[in-house]
């Protein structure tokens, strides 16, 4: 039972972080379908950092470095989206899709070539971080507290404050709703959209490293992040692009995702004799059902997906 709670919280944290990333990008007017790819890249950055940090590095430094590198790589990768969507006014759905395909493949190629370089017989795309991973965890009784839980809560609160209590948030959302109006009062729409995309990259990268350190000590990058970026998008939509609702939506989806990890701990679930594949499918099936019924009512930022063109009236 405790394990279920623990995993629910962890998965909810990952989903929240990534969904918040999507939320910033979309509030600025750029649809970020590339979150999946950003997660993979961030995860790779973090995993390699853990691998190459000297073994005597203190736990705190491991946490700080890993997170910093993941966020930085996520941001760098999101430059792709920024340049293409904001600067070249390309179709944002296509860029996002391309980023997802590229993300998983690029990470696989990089990790494989690193592995092969150090050992010519090693063709796997896996990175191990058994020891380093422990730096993120503090045991409180039987409960494994992860620093990511604290970070996600801070991110949720900070996002709420930034969006609704600051100048930046007001301007950001104006650009996603009515960029011409923002422009007419002297707000630089391009700059705001860049900020939105970069924040989204950082949070996506953070979510990536958080994901691959949850429950496992090794990650094969050819798996990407198993659709978690898309699940986060579903959370964002179900959460109506609002941090407080995103937190709730993330807990719901996180619960079903956690169930697939720990259902064997519940006798009555095991006795149902349902194949494990069904539990693995649950979060995705639930997201389909939930969105089919609620997405009609939820209101996306009005101008998202439309490249801003100063000249057009």
């Amino acid at each position, binding site marked *: 039972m405790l394990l279920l709670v623990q995993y629910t919280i962890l998965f909810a944290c990952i989903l929240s972080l990534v969904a918040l990333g999507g939320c910033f990008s979309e509030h600025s007017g750029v649809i970020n379908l590339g979150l999946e790819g950003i997660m993979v890249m961030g995860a790779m950055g973090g995993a390699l950092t853990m691998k190459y940090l000297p073994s005597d590095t203190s736990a705190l430094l491991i946490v700080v470095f890993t997170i910093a590198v993941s966020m930085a790589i996520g941001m760098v990768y999101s430059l792709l989206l920024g340049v293409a969507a904001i600067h070249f006014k390309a179709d944002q759905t296509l860029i996002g899709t391309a980023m997802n395909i590229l993300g998983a493949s690029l990470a696989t190629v990089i990790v494989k070539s690193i592995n092969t370089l150090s050992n010519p017989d090693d063709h796997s795309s896996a990175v191990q971080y058994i020891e380093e991973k422990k730096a993120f965890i503090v045991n409180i009784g039987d409960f494994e507290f992860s620093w990511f839980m604290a970070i996600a809560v801070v991110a949720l609160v900070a996002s709420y404050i930034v969006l609704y*209590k*600051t100048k930046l948030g*007001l301007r950001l959302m104006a650009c996603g709703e009515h960029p011409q109006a*923002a422009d*007419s*009062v*002297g*707000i630089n729409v391009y700059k705001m959209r860049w900020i939105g995309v970069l924040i989204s990259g950082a949070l996506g990268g953070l979510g990536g490293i958080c994901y691959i350190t949850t429950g496992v000590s090794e990650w094969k990058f050819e798996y990407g992040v198993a659709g978690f970026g898309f699940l986060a998008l579903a959370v964002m939509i179900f959460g109506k692009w609002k941090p407080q609702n995103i937190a709730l939506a993330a807990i719901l989806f996180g619960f079903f995702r956690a169930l697939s990890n720990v259902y064997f701990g519940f006798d009555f679930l095991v006795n149902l004799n349902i194949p494990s594949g069904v539990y693995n499918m649950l979060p995705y099936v639930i997201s389909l059902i939930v969105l089919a019924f609620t997405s009609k009512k939820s*209101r996306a930022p009005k101008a998202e997906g439309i490249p801003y063109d100063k000249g057009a009236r």
Partner: protein
Amino acid sequence: MEQTYAIEMLNITKRFPGIIANDNISLQLKKGEIHALLGENGAGKSTLMSVLFGLYQPEEGTIKKDGKEVKINNPNDANDLGIGMVHQHFKLVECFSVLDNIILGVEPNKAGFLQKSEARKKVMELSDRYNLQIDPDALIEDITVGMQQRTEILKMLYRDNEILIFDEPTAVLTPQEIKELMQIMRNLAAEGKSILFISHKLAEIMEVADRCSVLRKGKYVGTVETANTTMEELSALMVGRNVSFHVDKKESTPGKEILSIENMTVASKLHKNNAVRNVSLKVRAGEIVCIAGIDGNGQTEFVHGLTGLEPLAGGKITLCGEDITKATIRQRSLKGMSHIPEDRHKHGLVLDYTLEDNLVLQRYFEPEFTDKAGFLKRKNIREYAEKLIGEFDVRSGQGPSTIVRSMSGGNQQKAIIARELDKDPELLVAVQPTRGLDVGAIEFIHKQLIAQRDAGKAVLLVSLELDEVMDVPDRILVMYEGEIVGEFDPKKTTQEELGLYMSGAKRM
């Protein structure tokens, strides 16, 4: 003594591909005056204001503020100089509150955190002082157009703007709101604000403005004191010739019956009742029949039922002796029905198509425009478009290949009229054909309607404008709550009498 002006725009020239929007235009705004800028659609008013507001850079010319030359590169510069603008299409974020919209861009803040109470105090002070009623916490999407406009005005006042530009502010307002706006503008001018009022409505300019500058086809025509001029003189300046406000026409000589509608009933999309109830009418060749009424009394649904955009709940339509009750839109079109729709953007044009493609929208499948293999005959389409553009004087940047979205409203309407009339219809259904157009275009359209009538066609006009209802048709039918409640001879009735029927106070 030399007069110093609040703002001067001297010899401004602004070119767009294929068109000179502003050709050597000068405009001088005195302090504390209401200065109207008059011109037809496409005369260059909006472009000139966009130059002043920093949205466009002129190729030539200078701008002076209080006698000193200034450079305006973007809206921030304009704001720093105290220039504010209420755009024709409001620049408001719909899901933000009134207060958030007002402070957007100049948010009072401490280290980036919004200080809304400070802003709220200032906004409410301004609101009281200028009698601009708003609810600061209401969302824009929930409030009336009038309050949205007051929000825009407060946006300018909040920024301490001294020069206020109103771009066609009355187009979206009800008569009551227009009156209030005029009073607000007078108050603002009395407080020392200088106001530029862009409009093509002569009566409003005569009522509120001190002086009026006139543009025509991108050129500056002159500036007059409104106290020393008349509406006729202003309209002659604007159009370049004398415009008759009254429509000249001969006595009609109705011939055979073209359209017959029996007991038409159309369901409403808004409520459970029928929007059109048991309407019967006839239109004969060589007459113009007008359906008058206040907006929302079933006219839209009536037209949709007649033209095939919506199915009938009951009744029968006969066109030239043929039952077309269940005919498709194309069949109706081929049988001789032309339709100038109420919403030209939604039902009249494909905005992102070229002008030539829009002009053959109902004929592209004819052998003249499509060969046997199904390919379009581009050359024929181009020639046909050029012919219509010439005949109907449709003005655009790049001729037949202009994207229709970029054309002015008047020219878009002319394109629709060209397409619909060149089909040589038996019946022309014209719904609010002059909506949002200037006097020159209105006169043109009225003449076209009467020419159709004189050529022996049947014309069914649906109009909300009482002047148009009195001047153009040979018979008036008043529609109230989906029913025809009266029939009148325009020569024997008055606007007041029609008003009683339109408001439901009387019925036959």
